[in-house]
């Protein structure tokens, strides 16, 4: 079943049971980190998943990376369900999808030299001879702006931005088709952020990569993504092309989110339209998860979870009120 989709997430649910008891743990509750989300990606696209704490975007990323197994639903990579892979298949699958994580100070092994960090995926997958691997490492290091001498140093000798470059070089080493980036620039200063984003965009063009980028920063996501998905409390409330989402946001949460983003222009006064806080994922509200804070609530919202509706080509919303 290959309709050109490189990644297809269908009805994905990931619940974490909360247990009590030391010797014989019993489940007393469930954290519904991801609660039925569906999206599809084509090769070359960049999907940005945005949302606030507890919305489930990181869990989604972990599931796509096969670091977690779904509670239900399917994750299809190039048509094959990754949650059904055995060890060997999983191992081969990993060549296609790599990751870059948030904290450049914690995502690199402080005891390994840069070249060993970049080269590890190559050794693990035995890609080529020793010489070939070393050449590859040098190639990718140079690509992200490192000199050969620098590959012999340790991560702590470099700044945050440089470390993120190391992480990117490592992610590229296997020539994956897709890279999952979990908050890749949140821990960086603004001027460095821009450098890294530019690098990511250049690499995307050069290698024809597909990115799944997770972030809480709407502006960053909008800049680099072709599509944007907004998550709230484990649900994907809106999914659209970048311009569509910004130009005509349909879901009340999306609108509230956009209005809360501070803008570097004092002339633009943003009205804070959202009160209250995100409820705990252990106790999500019944019906539409957003209904307690929603300014456009109708009675149906309290009772039934809204399904996905395509309100315009490629623009999906989960809301009872969208027309």
């Amino acid at each position, binding site marked *: 079943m290959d309709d050109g989709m490189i990644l297809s997430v269908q009805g994905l649910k990931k619940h974490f049971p909360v247990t009590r008891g030391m010797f014989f743990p019993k489940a007393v509750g469930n954290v519904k980190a991801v609660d039925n989300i569906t999206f599809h990606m084509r090769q070359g696209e960049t999907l940005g998943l945005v949302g606030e704490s507890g919305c489930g975007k990181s869990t989604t990323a972990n599931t796509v990376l096969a670091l977690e197994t779904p509670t239900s639903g399917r994750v299809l990579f190039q048509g094959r369900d990754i949650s059904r892979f055995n060890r060997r298949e999983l191992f081969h699958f990993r060549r296609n999808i*790599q990751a870059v994580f948030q904290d450049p100070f914690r995502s690199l092994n402080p*005891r390994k030299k840069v070249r060993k960090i970049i080269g590890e995926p190559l050794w693990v997958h035995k890609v080529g001879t020793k010489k070939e691997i070393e050449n590859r490492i040098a190639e990718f290091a140079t690509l992200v702006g490192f000199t050969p001498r620098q590959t012999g140093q340790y991560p702590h000798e470099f700044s945050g931005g440089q470390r993120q470059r190391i992480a990117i070089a490592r992610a590229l080493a296997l020539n994956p088709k897709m890279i999952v980036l979990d908050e890749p620039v949140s821990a960086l200063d603004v001027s460095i952020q821009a450098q890294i984003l530019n690098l990511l965009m250049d690499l995307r063009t050069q290698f024809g990569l597909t990115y799944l980028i997770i972030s809480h920063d709407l502006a960053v996501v909008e800049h680099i993504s072709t599509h944007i998905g907004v998550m709230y409390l484990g649900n994907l409330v809106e999914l659209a092309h970048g311009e569509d989402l910004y130009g005509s946001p349909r879901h009340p949460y999306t609108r509230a989110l956009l209005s809360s983003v501070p803008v570097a222009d004092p002339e633009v006064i943003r009205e804070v339209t959202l009160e209250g806080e995100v409820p705990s994922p252990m106790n999500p509200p019944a019906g539409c998860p957003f209904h307690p804070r929603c300014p456009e609530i109708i009675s149906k919202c309290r009772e039934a979870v809204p399904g996905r509706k395509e309100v315009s080509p490629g623009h999906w919303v989960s809301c009872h009120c969208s027309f």
Partner: protein
Amino acid sequence: MTTATDAITGKKIKAPRVGAGIPWLGLACLALFFFTVLFADVIAPHDPFEGDLLNITLPPAWEEDGNRSYLLGTDMLGRDVLSRLIHGSRISLLISVGCIIFYGSIGVVLGLISGFTGGRTDMLIMRLADFWMSLPAIIVLFILAAVNGPSAKTIVLTIGIMGWPNYARIVRGECLSLKQRDFVRLARVAGCSNMRIMVSHILPNIINSIIILATIEIGGIIVLTATMSFLGLGAQPPSCDWGLMLAEGRQYITYAWWLVTFPGLAIVVAVLGFNLTGDWLRELLDPKQKLR
């Protein structure tokens, strides 16, 4: 050198010197200890096992009846106390290092497996550790001594099999926190097997803790082995184990004080050396010092 003044107090500010904080006393003690271990044969003035029966229980050289060639006096068999002390350092070191390597290895392996695997295995190993720690070491030692006969080897065996829970606990704790770290996640994403992650990623990052724990424990082990020898369960005569020297000299304490004082001091020096240096090492290698 800086010429800055504190704006609040008006006093001159002295920048921290490069050598500040180094535990000179501890390092000196350690240096002395290792020196005697290495060069015992050369520096000991007499044979530690041959006694001169004409010169029994001589006081230290500076005392009235002392003899220059027996600097710290002699014991009840005429053996030179100083030579015995010097050779005894070898025994102390051998035993304590032997113990540490023995239970350290067990502890590290179990701790790694426990911390990394988690779940049932973790629970089982930790409950085992709890149980193990509640066993009184002395009783085990008595039993083993009864079975194998008391000797230095018995001590190593006892401490070796009793001492791992602490190590396992600490290694497990580090493992747990390292497991969450992003670089471990990335290793998985790259396709690394569990074994590879444990050995290649986690282990190098806990080596620091392992070493530091060893330096801290070794002091305690020296005291413990001395205690065991003192109780007669460890090294047997004519060994010059310090604990044994203490036991042998105990009954003469009122008129031959040097037989007990010097072995005691030797223990103090050795343990102090390890403890002070271990403390300093711990601060030095503290991973919480984030380097940006």
